[in-house]
């Protein structure tokens, strides 16, 4: 579904700036859950942002192939909205507050843009409510939250929950969750994990970016990758997460500089 090859990226508008991603290789197949772990500043959000099309990054080398609805696509060629319509979803590490745009209107506009792209009929307000009602319930999102402006005045937990709610409504094919677990108490974490697990299917792939192993007790990954200083320095099964948790990120530095 996703094939990243030798991906290099830096901050746009900093022509002489250093590279933040320094050669990423990653293959994600439909049905798989990949966890990307790594210390702060290692480039996790940069990778997620590059995949979603954030224009503050500039890709300097490498390719990203993505299996779209109608065949293979060069993901980096597409605008952010085209990627979303082809099924890419990014749950933001820091969801954006948008005063004056109602959450429900926003989400319906998004869903309809995606449906239109796929040749499906657009949903009116009533159909849309029917479509979302069950998902709201599963994720403990109450009516009040959906009527408010997008993320405005939401607590940290409410924002993260709203990201997962959006994911549940938009039903992406490739979901990238950027530290959705950070700042969540254990109950909220379980709810979020439940939302993600409910979406697992042979047609979907998920990339879970996290700083902590804790989330992976609830969303069990097929593969774990360790991102360090712009490169994936270790890949393995779910036990790699436990190893990291035990040893901390400190050993990476030694291991990497020793060329192990």
């Amino acid at each position: 579904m996703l094939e990243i090859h030798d991906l290099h990226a830096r901050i746009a508008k900093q022509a002489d700036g250093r590279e933040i991603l320094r050669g990423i290789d990653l293959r994600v197949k439909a049905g798989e859950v990949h966890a990307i772990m790594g210390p702060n500043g290692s480039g996790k959000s940069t990778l997620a942002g590059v995949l979603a099309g954030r224009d503050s990054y500039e890709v300097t080398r490498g390719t990203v192939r993505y299996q779209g609805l109608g065949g293979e696509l060069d993901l980096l060629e597409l605008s952010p909205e085209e990627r979303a319509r082809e099924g890419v979803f990014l749950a933001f590490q820091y969801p954006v507050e948008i005063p004056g745009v109602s959450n429900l209107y926003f989400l319906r506009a998004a869903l309809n843009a995606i449906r239109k792209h796929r040749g499906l009929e657009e949903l009116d307000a009533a159909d849309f409510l029917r479509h979302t009602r069950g998902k709201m319930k599963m994720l403990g999102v109450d009516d009040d939250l959906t009527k408010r402006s997008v993320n405005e005045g939401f607590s940290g937990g409410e924002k993260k929950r709203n990201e997962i709610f959006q994911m549940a409504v938009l039903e992406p094919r490739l979901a990238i969750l950027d530290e959705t677990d950070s700042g969540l108490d254990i109950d909220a974490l379980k709810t979020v994990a439940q939302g993600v697990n409910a979406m697992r299917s042979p047609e979907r792939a998920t990339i879970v970016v996290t700083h902590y192993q804790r989330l992976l007790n609830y969303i069990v990954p097929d593969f774990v990758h360790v991102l360090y200083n712009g490169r994936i320095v270790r890949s393995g099964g779910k036990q790699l997460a436990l190893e990291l948790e035990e040893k901390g990120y400190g050993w990476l530095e030694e291991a990497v500089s020793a060329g192990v």
Partner: protein
Amino acid sequence: MSVTAIPATGGAYRAAFEAAARAQRGPGWLGTARRAAFERFLELGFPTPKHEEWRHTNVAVIARGEFTPAPPPDAAAEAAAEKFLAGSPFAALGGARLVFLDGRYAARFSTPGALGAGVRAGSLGAALAAGDAIGEALTREAPWSELAFVALNTALFDDGAVIEIGRGQVLPEPVHVLYLATAAAAQYLQPRTLILAGRDSQASVIEAYASLGEQGVFTNAVTEIVAEENAALEHARLQQENLASYHVSATFARAGRTARVALHALTFGGALTRNDVTAVLDGEGAEVLLNGLYIAGGRQHIDNHTVLDHAQPLGTSREFYKGILDGQASTAFRGRIVVRPDAQHTDAIQSDKNLLLSADAVASSDPQLEIRADDVRCTHGATFGQIDAEALFYLQSRGIGAEAARRLLTFAFASDVLARLRCAPLRRALERELFHRWTGLEGDGEA
């Protein structure tokens, strides 16, 4: 006269004034005031951009034009009014409706309705002609001796709305005053509005301006508002004239002890618009809200000048203006806050925020604080910005196209100004109108 003024082309105005003076009826003091105002207008002349208060707005097109009074509406004008009133979402926003067609009260289209005893809403011209008591608020609230346009209106107005809400009267629905213009270019309208809200009364008044044709009229409007002790008055001024119109307005409001006055200035139309709003907090604990939205595209120019005059202690003023500029539009905002020595414990907050959708649009913002009391809180701020890149990316990342996302964010920028309108029919009509304008969709962005 000096470099700060262009001499008023006396001829046309003189002839119009003398003709009007012969026809106008009303109390003797008013006739005297009108003549004095007219002579003063000729002395003052029209301001030029060298005049400090007119730095951003050049009224040469008005000063040099040979404007004549708009003639009474003909059958075509009546038909245009009928069509507008039948079809526009802005045709019926309240209970009572007073329609003025080319400056004259149009009884045929007006529905003053059953406002009950103690409330008057009707034609000012008719009230003056009938010798009804109007009170001295007329011309007292709008000082004309240094303001050329106010002097001109005082000299020449012959009709407008008079709304008087008696002591303790609570109006469940807004009074909707509609000034409709069909007149030709080089014609002027001088509407005058007088709103008197008695002690403990509560009301909303909408004062709306719209063009029914393509021609650009010069409207020079003056509105006087008095809210007596503990009155709650909301006044919404809506300017939706066509892009050929020139519109100059001056609104003067006085808030008595613990009165709550909200003055909304919603300016969308006009080639050139200048609004002056002056609110005096003239009793202890008065509260004033100045809430403004100006939307300018093409080559439109909109200039809003406001003065908040804290004359008594414990007053609260909130001023929130927002502008959305596109094309080569230009706007100016000047917000003066005066805190007089007696006005201790004043609490004043002012902000002017501008969203620039085009690199060629120019907005200027100029706060002026004149604080002569020591125990006050007074803050102000102005911003100029583009669409927020992070918000834009967020919407795009959900599948919403870049252009649609930009439009949605533009609507969102205006939404808090609209939310401050307590008058629900107007708020809803504006939400739908602006939502449609930017998104091309029906609805109001709620679900």
